[in-house]
């Protein structure tokens, strides 16, 4: 059963000629327990869409059903109650600057009417869960970006929500911290069973943790489906632009087999290509790359053309698959 079901949702800002159609006829469903990604370029309407899931933005038309309940028709009081089960984390963390880490986590519990002692106990549990048990007395200004987001995650989980909405939660973080926050989200999804909705403009984020993804472009859903399907065979222009490094046009590529590899913080990519040549005696063709080398670790994606010889291609593929911290997908041709 879907935990979030959106049907024919439209959001228009303003009226008349100055009206901006931020979202048009959006339908999607998020299954309980999954990590669902919504990706798009800036201005695509992602943030508006995620805010329609807890009614921080009211849709102009359409229905939003959360956990079996149509939330657009709720009273303010009922809506506030529902919001305790749909938490949200933000790009800029949005912690209370005048409260300690511990008191930030107590905040939603205070709102829900918990006793102080119970709230503190619960907050300490959560600090431990996000690995910050020794920083409970620190104020946000004394924490790093990654630590602030961990506090925000702990705060969001305090009331045992069913859904965690992440609005560009890693966009303000460096790649190493991004990876650690993403693996925390994945871990929380698996251990607590909380459904996670991830809004991002980075394909690497989707690739790292999402099972399904919707691509948003100009306020409409361009395509949606399982992440591996979209990655191996993006059907739309925006899909290709997001999936392939530098937006390479796949139909202009050579007829050989093409693979897309993603580096998730393992060793640098140069040794991989070199060792492919040395260990396997296979030369691959780099068709496109968007990689960054941070503290000796590789992040990003690369599009490789495999040799036409099927044997060599298979050897190369096996070799790459055996590497840690690298994911590989074969790209289907688009003719």
């Amino acid at each position: 059963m879907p935990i979030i079901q959106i049907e024919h949702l439209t959001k228009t800002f303003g009226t008349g000629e100055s009206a901006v159609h931020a979202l048009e006829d959006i339908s999607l469903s998020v299954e309980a327990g999954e990590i669902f990604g919504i990706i798009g370029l800036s201005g695509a309407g992602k943030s508006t869409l995620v805010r329609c899931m807890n009614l921080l933005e009211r849709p102009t038309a359409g229905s939003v059903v959360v956990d079996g309940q149509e939330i657009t028709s709720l009273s303010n009081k009922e809506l506030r109650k529902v919001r305790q089960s749909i938490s949200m984390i933000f790009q800029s963390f949005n912690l209370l600057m005048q409260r300690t880490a511990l008191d930030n986590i107590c905040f939603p519990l205070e709102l829900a009417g918990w006793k102080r002692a119970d709230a503190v106990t619960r907050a300490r549990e959560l600090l431990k869960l996000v690995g910050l048990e020794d920083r409970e007395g620190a104020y946000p200004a004394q924490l790093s970006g990654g630590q602030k987001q961990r506090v925000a995650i702990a705060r969001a989980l305090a009331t045992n929500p069913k859904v965690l909405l992440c609005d560009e939660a890693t966009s303000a973080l460096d790649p190493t911290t991004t990876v650690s926050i993403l693996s925390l989200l994945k871990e929380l999804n698996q251990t607590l069973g909380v459904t996670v909705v991830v809004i991002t403009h980075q394909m690497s984020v989707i690739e790292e943790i999402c099972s399904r993804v919707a691509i948003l472009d100009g306020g409409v859903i361009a395509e949606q489906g399982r992440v591996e399907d979209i990655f191996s065979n993006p059907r739309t222009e925006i899909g290709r632009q997001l999936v392939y490094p530098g937006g390479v046009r796949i139909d202009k590529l050579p007829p050989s087999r093409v693979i897309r590899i993603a580096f998730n913080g393992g060793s640098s990519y140069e040794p991989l290509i070199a060792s492919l040549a040395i260990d396997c005696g296979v030369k691959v063709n780099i068709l496109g790359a968007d990689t960054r080398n941070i503290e000796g670790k590789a992040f990003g994606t690369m599009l490789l053309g495999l040799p036409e010889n099927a044997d060599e291609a298979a050897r190369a593929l096996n070799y790459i698959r055996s590497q840690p911290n690298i994911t590989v997908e074969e790209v289907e041709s688009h003719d």
Partner: protein
Amino acid sequence: MTEAITAFWNQYGELLIDGTADTFVMVIVSTIFAYLLGLPLGVLLNITQPHGIWPHKWLNRILGWIVNVGRSLPFIILMIAIMDFTKLIVGTKIGVKGAIVPLVVSAAPFIARMVETSLAEVDAGVVEAAQSMGASVPQIVWKVYLPEAKPSLILGASISIITILAYTAIAGAVGAGGLGDLAIRYGYQRKVPSMMWVTVILIIVIVQVIQSIFSWLSTKVDKRLR
């Protein structure tokens, strides 16, 4: 020199002590009542805005209009204009008691604007986060706006108190008592320049002390500073 100071103190010392005490009473009592009115008014001005957490177009306009009227009247005119109202509230038009009513009426709108501005400095993202957790309007005011704006509210209070202090000196012109009254009666009307200078210096010292205390306090409570 020492003799001159002793002679001055013997003649005016008691007046100065009483005047300072009157000034303190007027400033403290007026500030308390002005905040009791101005703080909620400032909060309402902020939250009833079109993009506030409790949008009420007409309420916002009416409150804004009242505050603007209150702020556009010069204090000395307001004080005279509301004398009958003052008598109704405290039973007298003059003296320390008679000054407190116009001081409150004049300072409250000023404080409302100061509070409104302080709350506007609170990060909209933090307010949104509170809303996303299901916080009600009063909860956001008490648990987000006021605590997060605390350092700014404290700085605003120093400006408000010093403004009220300046008004008490003006009130002195119509027999309110206090240091302003001494400066006018002795320094100006009875031509005792030393009295004028002493009261001026006392007022300067009081302003400096208030400003220093509140600036220190604002920095001390602000957890954004490491």
